[in-house]
């Protein structure tokens, strides 16, 4: 509903009535309404310069106080209403009056609803003193707002982070050994199980998802392809533990327990380093791989490695060579930084798929391996950006295979339970 509509309609009705009644005084009532409207409209020549100063960065959920300077260089005063159009932030609506040629400063409370680099789009709406006309002006922010995950929430998320059921996902994804129709047992639904296996009767009885498990007929050969490149190992290394060695040992022990024949193929950036028979056990595998601790070299921060997201595939052909050496019909578990060379990884996965080799990629994300003590306010944003870039890089790989992202706390509890 518009005030001008009501005022002008009233003027028109009064004018018509005045004519019918033959009343010049009543016609002057309509005149007063029309002339007032006309003067208001002609004198409405607004111009506002609105600047909002924001801190360059903020933490998610924190409330910021932005200073807004409103400069009115014209004779048109009125009410200024500043509202935020971006959905990424929650900002209170600011309502203030401004007079002719006045410069006014107000504050606005803003809280970021999401993380990342946010572009804010505020609009200042100037309504004239009478509330008849209005005009919109952009609010100049100067820069974008970088919102970081708050340290408190990061801690909270770390505390609540569930263990990745990596082994369940891995075995479920590659389906080691074809299953017979012979029923083995019922068990609780785990990530990686398909909906086809749900036993609906048992589920309704127990009020939780239950799946049917069948006997496996054969045991397939498993090839564990491990990137043992120095840089990759350094990016996963903690204070005392070489996580790559831990992951290899756990996988070998796990598959060995169930009697699978297995081979560990170690490769670095340039070539296949070594092939080790996994039946000998985890300790011997680690000794033969020669994964010794290198003293004096600090852990490599993931931000120091540059992701090869675009351009032609690099010269790193060792993964393709390793993949080519696997016989058809077997199973492959690749342990590598999938985000570092996504194009090579993509080619390798396509090759595996063409050859009928079921594959799963265990992707230790180096960002998750950065020790808590090294995360500071200064490098938090850079780490966060690195994490986002990596997420983006591996997005395409997920269409080809099951990609299990693991951190230093994954795998171990499950392995202990299984062993």
């Amino acid at each position: 509903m518009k005030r001008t509509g009501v005022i002008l309609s009233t003027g028109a009705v009064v004018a018509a009535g005045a004519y019918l009644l033959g009343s010049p005084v009543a016609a002057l009532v309509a005149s007063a309404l029309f002339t007032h409207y006309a003067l208001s409209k002609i004198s409405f020549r607004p111009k506002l310069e609105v600047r909002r100063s924001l801190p360059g960065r903020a933490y998610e959920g924190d409330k910021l106080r932005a200073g807004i300077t409103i400069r009115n260089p014209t004779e048109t005063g009125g009410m200024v209403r500043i509202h935020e159009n971006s959905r990424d932030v929650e900002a209170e609506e600011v309502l203030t009056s401004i007079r002719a040629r006045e410069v006014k400063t107000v504050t606005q409370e803003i809280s970021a609803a999401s993380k990342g680099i946010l572009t804010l789009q505020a609009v200042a709406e100037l309504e004239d003193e009478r509330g008849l006309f209005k005009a919109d002006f952009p609010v100049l922010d100067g820069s974008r707002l970088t919102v970081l995950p708050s340290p408190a929430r990061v801690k909270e998320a770390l505390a609540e982070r569930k263990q990745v059921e990596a082994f369940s996902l891995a075995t479920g994804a590659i389906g080691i050994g074809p299953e017979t129709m012979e029923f083995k047992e019922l068990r609780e639904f785990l990530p990686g199980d398909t909906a086809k296996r749900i036993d609906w009767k048992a589920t309704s009885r127990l009020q939780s998802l239950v799946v049917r498990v069948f006997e496996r007929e054969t045991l397939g050969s498993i090839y564990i392809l491990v990137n043992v490149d120095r840089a990759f190992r350094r990016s996963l290394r903690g204070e005392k533990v070489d996580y790559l060695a831990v992951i290899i040992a756990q996988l070998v022990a796990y598959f060995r327990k169930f009697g699978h024949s297995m081979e560990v193929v170690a490769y670095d950036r340039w070539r296949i380093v070594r092939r080790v028979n996994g039946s000998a056990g985890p300790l011997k595998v680690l000794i033969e791989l020669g994964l010794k601790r290198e003293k004096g070299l600090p852990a490599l921060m993931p931000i120091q490695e540059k992701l090869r997201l675009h351009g032609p595939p690099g010269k790193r052909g060792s993964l393709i060579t390793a993949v080519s050496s696997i016989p058809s019909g077997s199973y492959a578990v690749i342990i590598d930084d999938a985000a570092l060379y996504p194009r090579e990884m993509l080619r390798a996965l396509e090759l595996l798929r063409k050859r009928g080799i079921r594959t799963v990629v265990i992707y230790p994300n180096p960002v998750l391996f950065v020790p808590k003590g090294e995360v500071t306010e200064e490098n938090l944003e850079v780490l966060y950006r690195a994490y986002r870039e990596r997420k983006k890089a591996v997005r395409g790989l997920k269409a080809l295979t099951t990609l299990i992202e693991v951190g230093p706390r994954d795998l171990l509890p499950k392995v202990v339970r299984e062993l």
Partner: protein
Amino acid sequence: MTGLIASLLLAVLTGNYWYLWAALPYAIRIWRREWAFIGVALYALALGVEAPRLSLYTLNGAVVGLGTFVSVFLTVEECLSVRPLGPTPLEMGLMLLLSIAALNDYAFATALIIVLAYRACERFGKTALYLLGWGAGTVLVLYMVRKAMPGPVAQTMALIGLSLVPFLLSERRDVEHAEVRALE
């Protein structure tokens, strides 16, 4: 509050107490500014029906016509504006001037023009010249065609036509109309 005072004086002078309806938009304005335009519309409609039917070519008719115009104009402006209603010392002086001038028709007409000119200049700045120009032009036209006017209906028709001049002038500007948020 000058609009309210002008209306009260007109009510007393003419004996037409429909002018007292001016209190309605002011009361609504005090209660809630957002809705004051409804009171203004009701006041204008009330006057449109019950305004004295006088020829503008008589002294009494001219003074009442001028007073009605000024009263409605000031009421619309003061009730819609965000500025506070409380009168400044200068406005108190103008209201006193109006009250004293009401004792004489010529003095009252002069006082009404002074009050209108003051308020228009204060609120609209240089744009007030449009109002003064339109007022002078209207008086001149009505004076020039005084012998051709067969009666009040013709005067009404002429006034309505002249009222459309500033309206049409303002339509040259393309301005966005504000919504009444309280009623959305």
